[in-house]
């Protein structure tokens, strides 16, 4: 470790194709030991594919990778690991039932004679490891599943730094959105750790959506868009606005429709909603013709809140009141028992009957039935009512589905009979939306509807939400994307640790302000 200017990682002309579709079109990257190489890009730009290649999880279709000048082939995650490339993925990979020690040392426990695990030594080694990177507060004997998400993330990072049995420690550490679940002091300790690793000559590849921290940490910023590197710059030579423009390839204004005029009557009133361990004393109102944003970090309780409002989880106290159900906005006619009064929905079915719809966060698990056709997925919410005698009215369903596929421009146009799993992420999300629009909702709750969705489809989704709101629907857009939660909405509710901490007008609020309320550093 003589020179810190040593080129640690060099990739040249990396291409990656899935079937006939190429998603990386010849990417070049160079990082020196001790650098923080920040990679930024919109969803679908190719960041994840690049990370997977570095981690050995995917093989490049063409191109080469050099480590310390030496050409290396990564055939498997094990290869990458052995060469000192360590990756902390965005999704947590700890085994929740096992202790922190077991998670950290899995596969190379200290042994006693007879081959038994020497637990005392194992815990000591785990503690030492955590302390050496400034995470000494984590007890290695705790089961991983009982740690907060932020601490699990720290253990993930510690795990990536384990140098087993004399092998080289990490030379390259890839961090994929490491800060997504961190806030305040935890974020600070992550930054401290990164700087410490820098001094030890580790190259950090830092992938993040949060441009503020990218400009603070990075020595080099690389912007990736549509599978190409479109810019390489230093943080002192750029600013967030320029980065956003480079990532999106257009002004952010174009992405979001104009804001809507004044909101109408309240359609959903939540008051004093409380669910122990998840959120407390939540009150807000959703009005016709308005898109309300809900921002919160992972673990703030936002998804749980949406599920609870929708009757999918019981609440401990509070009420959810849907105003009169009517087909036309402004109508005051009441559907049988489904509206009025202070009450909670006891099941999603009751919520649907009262005019609510919920697009969940995880469309593969709770938004779609992947094995079924697109038509069956779109028809799921109306399955019980689309009948003729005892049988399904397939003719009517075909007409309804076809109309929705056209209205939302779901591609391919003949997707109705295809398994929904063959659709792209964006089109799958449209299918979920179509399913809910068929119920004729007046209140639409959406939890991270643009996650894993390409830019073009995102713009379409924003436009669609705008149209729906203008037609008199009340929309709640839950998002952890600051730009989106301000750009696509009229006002923003902010949640922190299960409480609503702010309600802000979207057009007069900065991302920093929203984040400050979400993290708890209000000036």
């Amino acid at each position, binding site marked *: 470790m003589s020179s810190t200017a040593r080129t640690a990682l060099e990739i040249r002309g990396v291409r990656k194709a899935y*079937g*006939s579709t190429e*998603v990386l079109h010849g990417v070049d990257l160079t990082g020196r030991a001790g650098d923080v190489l920040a990679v930024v*890009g*919109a*969803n*679908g*730009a*190719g*960041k*994840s594919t690049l990370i997977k290649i570095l981690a050995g999880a995917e093989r490049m279709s063409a191109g080469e990778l050099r480590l310390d000048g030496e050409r290396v082939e990564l055939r498997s995650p094990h290869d990458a690991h052995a060469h000192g490339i360590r990756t902390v*993925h*965005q*999704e947590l990979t700890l085994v929740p039932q096992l202790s922190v020690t077991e998670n950290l040392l899995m596969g190379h426990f200290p042994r006693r004679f007879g081959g038994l695990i020497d637990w005392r030594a194992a815990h000591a080694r785990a503690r030492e490891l955590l302390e050496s990177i400034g995470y000494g507060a984590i007890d290695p004997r705790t089961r991983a599943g009982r740690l907060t998400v932020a601490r699990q993330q720290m253990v993930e990072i510690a795990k990536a730094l384990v140098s087993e049995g004399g092998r080289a420690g990490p030379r390259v550490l890839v961090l994929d*959105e490491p800060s997504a679940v961190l806030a305040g002091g935890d974020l600070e300790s992550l930054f401290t750790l990164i700087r410490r690793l820098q001094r030890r000559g580790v190259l950090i590849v830092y992938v993040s959506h949060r441009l503020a921290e990218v400009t603070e940490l990075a020595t080099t910023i690389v912007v990736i868009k549509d599978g190409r590197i479109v810019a390489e710059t230093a943080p002192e030579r750029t600013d967030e606005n320029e980065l956003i423009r480079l990532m999106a390839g257009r002004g952010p204004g174009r992405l979001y429709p104009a804001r809507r005029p004044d909101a109408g009557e309240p359609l959903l009133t939540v008051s004093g909603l409380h669910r122990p361990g998840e959120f407390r004393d939540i009150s807000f109102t959703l009005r016709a013709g308005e898109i309300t944003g809900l921002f919160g970090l992972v673990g703030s309780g936002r998804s749980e809140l949406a599920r609870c409002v*929708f009757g*999918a989880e019981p609440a401990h106290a509070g009420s959810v009141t849907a105003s009169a159900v009517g087909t036309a906005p402004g109508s005051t006619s009441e559907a049988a028992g489904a509206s009025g009064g202070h009450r909670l929905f006891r*099941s*999603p*079915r009751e*919520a*649907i*009957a009262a005019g609510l719809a*919920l697009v*969940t966060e995880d469309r*593969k*698990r*709770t*938004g*779609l*039935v*992947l*094995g*079924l056709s697109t038509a*069956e997925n779109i028809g*799921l*919410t109306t*399955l*019980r009512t689309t*009948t003729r005698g*005892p*049988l*399904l009215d*397939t003719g009517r369903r075909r007409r309804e589905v076809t109309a929705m596929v056209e209205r939302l421009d779901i591609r*391919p*146009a*003949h*997707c109705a009979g*295809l398994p929904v*799993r*063959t*659709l*792209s*992420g964006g*089109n799958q999300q449209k299918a979920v939306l179509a399913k809910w629009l068929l*119920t004729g909702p007046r209140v639409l709750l959406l939890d991270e509807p643009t*996650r*894993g*969705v*390409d830019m073009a489809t995102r713009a379409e989704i924003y436009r669609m939400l705008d149209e729906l709101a203008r037609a008199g629907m009340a929309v709640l857009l839950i998002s952890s994307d600051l730009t989106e939660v301000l750009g696509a909405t009229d006002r923003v509710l902010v949640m922190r640790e299960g409480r609503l901490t702010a309600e802000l007008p979207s057009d007069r609020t900065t991302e920093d302000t929203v984040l400050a309320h979400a993290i708890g550093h209000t000036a």
Partner: protein
Amino acid sequence: MTDQLTTSAQPAEPADSDGSAPPGRRPSRRPGPPRLVVAGRDLTLEAGFAVLLVAFVAIAGSTTDAFLTEGNLTNLLKQMVTTGLLAFGMLTVILTGGIDLSVGSVVAFSGIVAAGLSAGLPVPLAMLVGLAAGTGFGLVNGVLVARFQLAPFVVTLAALTTIRGLAFVYSETPVAPEKEGFFELGSAVLGPLPVSTLIMLAVFLVGGIFLSRTPAGRSLVAIGGSAETVRLAGIGVRRHVVLAYTISGACAGLAGVILASRVGIAQPSVGTAFELDAIAACVIGGASLAGGKGSVRATFAGVLVLALINNLLNLYDVQSFWQQVLKGLIIVAVILVQRTGRFRTAGAPNPADPGKARLS
């Protein structure tokens, strides 16, 4: 973004921040084995089974004279009734992502109760009680699984031993009904076909329509794919799961009554390991034990395959222990052939498939 979908599906956009979609799952460009598509429907599986069955029959007919005799064929048709009924019930449960291990014991209990009661009650009534008992057991299984969220494997394993015990409690020794009427159900023929076979065919026909064309049937299939998606769509998941186990119990009850009637005697020990044949038929028919995937027609083909294997091994006079070995190997072979075909066309299975994660 292309909007054409021909042989290969439109690839999803690179799953950024959406790591749950491994690209290996995407349909590959390589042409798979030829598919048989008739009027827009992919009938490759059906055609494959047809070829297999014809081959079975051709081999059997040319190697042993005993196969193509009226007596043997009638026997074959009657023998497949039990497995057939159990397999349909099993399929409904497997589609929801569950399993019903108790069906063999239900066969014994329903048969012995019907046989026993036929001494004092009119035969049809006694048989109805046998059927009702099976339905009741299924209902209890369903409630334990759906309402109390117990693992289907554990619930029905407990039911397997409990109901077997109850059959012996009812009568330790075989019960031989005396009324002639008791034997009719299992022996009557309508034209060339045994009535019991016709009943089984009717169950498959009506059951097939139920699973493919009614809201409840589609809900069952969807629940096996993702129960939470179905619940959030406002569909009652519990009642549908209960329904699936109840159907399985009713099928087993019916099978038990028909079996006792055909054999002419009801034994408390009958039906051991019948659940395995039923599961095998579903799996040969391409059903996924993770739920959400399975075909009524292909399951029926699976029943035929199993019945033919059994029948042939008997005709060839293969010793019964060797029969078990061969049957096991043939089942694995059939599934392997099927799997390989599917892998090439649909790509590798998706390890992140949520359905697989909660295999019970």
